[in-house]
């Protein structure tokens, strides 16, 4: 089975940016996929591990930043589209883990 790759970008409109709670939701979702998932604030990187809350929070991305995702692995496409959906929905996924 060949390794699958996927990538996409999405504008983040969450009013306080990529702060603690959005970061928790983003990393938790990223971790639910087997694929390696990276995040960057620009197409050219630097890319960071989207499963690490320390690294995701450290981007200190403010509102109206475009988030770039890329993934590599069997469920790469699902991972990227789920993350894009989460950001589009303003980090509202009402399920409490």
């Amino acid at each position, binding site marked *: 089975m060949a390794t699958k790759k996927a990538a996409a970008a999405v504008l983040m*409109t*969450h*009013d*306080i*940016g990529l*702060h*603690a*709670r959005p*970061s*928790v939701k983003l*990393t*938790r979702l990223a971790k639910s996929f087997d694929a390696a998932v990276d995040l960057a604030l620009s197409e050219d990187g630097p890319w960071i*591990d989207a499963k*690490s*809350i*320390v*690294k995701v*929070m*450290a981007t*200190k991305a*403010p*509102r109206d930043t475009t988030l770039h995702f890329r993934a590599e692995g069997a469920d790469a496409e699902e991972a990227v589209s789920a993350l894009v959906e989460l950001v589009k929905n*303003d980090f*509202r996924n009402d399920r*409490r883990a």
Partner: protein
Amino acid sequence: MTDARKPQTPVAGQIASRGLAVGPVHIVAEGRERRRTQGDAAQEAAALRDAMARAARDLGGLIEAQADDEAAAILEVQLALLEDDGLTEGAFEAIAGGAPAERAWRDALDAQIRDYEAADDEYFRARATDLADLRDRVLDHLFGSGPAAVSPCPTGAIVVVDDLTPSRFLDLDWTVCGGLALSRGSPTSHVAMLARARGVPMLTGLGPLSLERGGIVILDAEAGRLEPAPTARRLREAAGRIADAEARRAKENTHLARPAVTADGVAVSVLVNLEELGQLDALDPAICDGIGLLRTEFLFSSARALPSEEAQYAAYVRFLDWAAGRPVTIRTLDAGGDKPVPGLTPEDEANPFLGVRGIRLSLRHRDVFEVQLRALARAAAGACGPLGVMFPMVTTPAEFVLARTIFEDVIAGLAADGVAAARPAIGMMVEVPAAAIRIADFDADFYSIGSNDLIQYVLACSRDNAALRDMFDGGDPAVVELIARTVAHGRATGRSVSLCGDMAGDADALDLLLGCGLRAFSVAPAVIGRIKAAIAATRLAGEGGHG
């Protein structure tokens, strides 16, 4: 014992959460002068891993136990950080290099904490506290003590501590502990908010305390003081006050679910003042006749960035849904005075209560004001009950007309863009004497009297000055006359008038207010039972026909 105060003298503090408690002193140590024996690198790594696993288990249990989302979210961030290799890899590298587990962990966390403390963004700086909390939690387990605060506290204990983090507060069993006394801390802290939500009496800013562990103290968070070594007489008095308060509360609670009616059958509306989303879960809308005052400052306090239209809209809809068809009145941003918003309110005013606050501020920041109005107009479109929007601190008729015109333009703009929007009732707060004196000049759909500010402006008496507490009196004839004038104008012209503020919660003042013809009061959730009980005990005999 050098600069600590004499234990016999009552110590003054700030009231962070009202109430009265008597109990033994329970000192929660801050000291971290603990020792453990260092093993080899593999043992140290295992010890750290074990301490982290225990800390994660604590957090998991605490999250489960939280009734409100806000408290759970604070803890979930800590748990996520703990589960992240990115946070901990530095510590394990240091251990491999020969460092003891506690130093490796502390250094790794301190590096992160410094990074957050240096952040430009206030919200990020606040995360440093969460990390410090997490650092200490793991250290406690590493030293084998478990969290210090968890040491069983005696029934009714008054917890005495320098300062307290939110998770340490949540670690304590507040069904057992009776009160909280902080040497430092602030009434606006996160912990103070948690204490108020749980009805735990709490004082802050008591300064250095030298209290004997287990000694009985009186924590009077009504008068704002801690009494060490009270006499038998003082203890009897306090016990009497606590018993009275409990009996009163039990009696008041029997009134909660019933509509408010005077002894002679006059119906009165009792509405609730709300100020944050976290309040909704614990509150049954059936105990009130709607939301009489929804303060919106909470939306502007969580971060330096201002709240988006979407975030505001979502919040307003949640309050409207909660009210389930009952009337809701939302006040536009009332920043300034004692409620600064960084980056929005002026910082160098000599007298902020007479400065750029309330509607004065909104009219100077049109962009911010219009975002809030758009969110409100959209919420009005989907509301299942009556929605009113009111402006705070209105002083001149021109100000009101300008604010209303901006609102109506915003609504027209939304309609032109095909966005669902509606015009709610547009009213105003009556809290500046100029507005009350010339009330007939203000063409608002409804009036809401803000008694706290009205009293302070009419009597030229700062409401937060303890030395003037006796003078700050809503029963003063000058105040009552202005309230009566507003109520009379409302009645004559068919506009509704309500009163929000602490005055409504005062049983003596209630007689006066009902006598003025006022029939709608909005009070804090904890006061609803008290005011309904007071209304039921009131007779309007002799007041004549209206009602």
